[in-house]
């Protein structure tokens, strides 16, 4: 495939998996005729029919619960959250049913389903459409949580998520759908539980995910010019966290900065700090630093919104400060 837009990479993943396996189907609001609110399923209903691209009424808890029932009985549903925030209405089905039912049933049923859609803070969409839900869901046992960040990893990860035998919460990001990248012509899959070392370095480990990966890489350009050499890790898997990759990096750099769009309180970063303390405390030369979104509902006003989420300047400053301390 030549240069591919992010949403088309996701579309290709779904298309390939639907062609490969007749039990795979998509359900959600406007996934059929309309093609998905971000065009991820555009025209697929023409190829696979209306039952496999099932336009549902606006009833999140019920269609998510239906997907659980379909998965328990042998199908592989992909639920599209028109905006992942709407799935707050399906919290019970995601937590009690998708996440916990296999355990509660003593292994009677497995639930191979993907719940995917646009998450994150968009551009002046207001609080309800600018959520950081991954933190709410990370405590649910039995769920895998994945955040994609590039067209390449979006495609490979989504294909793996569809083939996984477990429920996978798959976060895309509203502001990344138009990224472009050259994708391989041949089929590829990416592991759901592996973090990606985006840029090897030795000064400090920057742990990030989703759109913040791009803010970090922007900061890195300046940092490189200023003579710094940070290691950038895209977590990819928010649950379980890939402590092999994270550990290798921290044993090398001994310093950690977390950059996330998540809220500070009870966020992914909070869990990371706790786990790093548990496992790697002796490796640390400095306290782990967290750059998170402010603990407020995302404001509408553009300037306020900018202040709410982490900006590249803050990342530059944090790295310079932390690395300078090494002296």
């Amino acid at each position, binding site marked *: 495939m030549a240069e591919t837009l992010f949403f088309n990479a996701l579309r290709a993943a779904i298309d390939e998996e639907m062609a490969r396996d007749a039990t795979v189907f998509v359900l959600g609001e406007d996934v059929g005729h309309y093609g998905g609110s971000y065009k991820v399923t555009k025209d697929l209903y023409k190829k696979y029919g209306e039952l496999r691209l099932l336009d549902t*009424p606006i009833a999140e808890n*019920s*269609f998510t*619960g239906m997907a659980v*029932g*379909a998965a328990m*009985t042998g199908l592989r549903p992909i639920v599209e959250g028109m905006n992942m925030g709407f799935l707050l209405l399906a919290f019970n089905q995601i937590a009690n049913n998708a996440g916990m*039912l296999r355990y509660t*049933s003593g292994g*009677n049923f497995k639930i191979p389903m993907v719940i995917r859609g646009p998450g994150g803070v968009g551009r002046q969409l207001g609080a309800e459409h600018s959520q950081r839900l991954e933190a709410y869901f990370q405590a649910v046992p039995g769920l895998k949580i994945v955040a994609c960040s590039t067209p390449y990893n979006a495609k490979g990860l989504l294909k793996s998520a569809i083939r996984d035998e477990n429920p996978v919460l798959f976060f895309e990001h509203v502001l990344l759908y138009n990224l472009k990248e050259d994708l391989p012509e041949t089929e590829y899959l990416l592991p759901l539980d592996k973090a990606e070392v985006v840029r090897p370095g030795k000064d400090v480990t920057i742990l990030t995910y989703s759109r913040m990966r791009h803010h970090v890489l922007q900061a890195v350009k300046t940092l490189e010019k200023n003579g710094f050499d940070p290691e950038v890790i895209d977590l990819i898997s928010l649950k379980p966290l890939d402590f092999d990759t994270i550990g290798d990096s921290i044993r090398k750099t001994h310093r950690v900065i977390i950059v996330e769009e998540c809220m500070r309180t009870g966020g992914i970063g909070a869990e990371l700090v706790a786990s790093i303390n548990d496992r790697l405390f002796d490796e640390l030369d400095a306290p782990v630093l967290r750059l998170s979104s402010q603990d407020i509902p995302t404001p509408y006003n553009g300037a306020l919104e900018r202040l709410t989420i982490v900006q590249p300047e803050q990342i530059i400053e944090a790295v310079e400060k932390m690395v300078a301390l090494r002296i």
Partner: protein
Amino acid sequence: MVQERTLPTFSAASTQLSKEEGLRLYEDMILGRYFEDKCAEMYYRGKMFGFVHLYNGQEAVSTGVIQAMRPGEDYVCSTYRDHVHALSAGVPAKQVMAELFGKATGCSKGRGGSMHMFSQEHRLLGGYAFVAEGIPVATGAAFQSKYRREMMGDESADQVTACFFGDGACNNGQFFECLNMAALWKLPILYVVENNKWAIGMAHERATSQPEIYKKASVFGMAGVEVDGMDVLAVRQVAQEAVARARAGEGPTLIEALTYRFRGHSLADPDELRSKDEKEFWFARDPIKKLAAHLTEQDLASQEELKQIEQKIQQEIDEAVKFAESSPEPDPNELYRYIFAED
């Protein structure tokens, strides 16, 4: 005197019943009743814990509906009041009892308990502890049957799903959302409301603007029927019709079975709100006595034959208790097992 809703009339003469079928219905209801009585005993003796919701009084609904299906092939979905649905679906009494005892041999391996009976083998989609959450799951199973048939060309995929829930669940959004979708897509499903007049301490009329639940089907263009839930033959007949409709691709049915629970909401409930008059009205309609009378009056069975069934079931229940008591506890080393499909 309490004003009771008029129970729909049903003439047993209008239904075909062989001796064999009659005895099977009787046995299934006796199994449900004796099992629950034993649970109460075991609960008070400290053998089982948590919230335990018994089904006494409602047996005609589970038996009438599930015996009209193909147990083990068709799907059954229940609530927290799930022991008897599990038994009717074919889950052996010893597995259900062992689950209540929290043992490794329980149908949910001791991980579920009273409110979470599951059996993949018997197509029991589960006991769901949150009110109404089973309705979407069952609807998904019904969607799956349609999908296999229409998208995967599987002609044998004519399975029907029966989804049981209470009157209280009918005021929840999932009920309305799923009725809408099931009617829209003509899904092969029976929504079976066991209207026992109470949702814990909330009287049905105090919770809903239209107490006749079956009428709610009409706004979705769905078949809705009310039935005397204390008459297993009546329930079986409406279920047979609904199953036939579902298998023929004609869509879902909402069945409102008027019934009553003979015990408190759960074994922890002091049951102080329901009046003596009301209880007497319903106790006089014991579904097991009703079927017994019909079978003997119609010369389909003798008292002796019914006795034999009762003795056989009593023995089965006693064996279930022995099995549960002597079964091993779950292995502590398997605390983390069953979280993911690979475990």
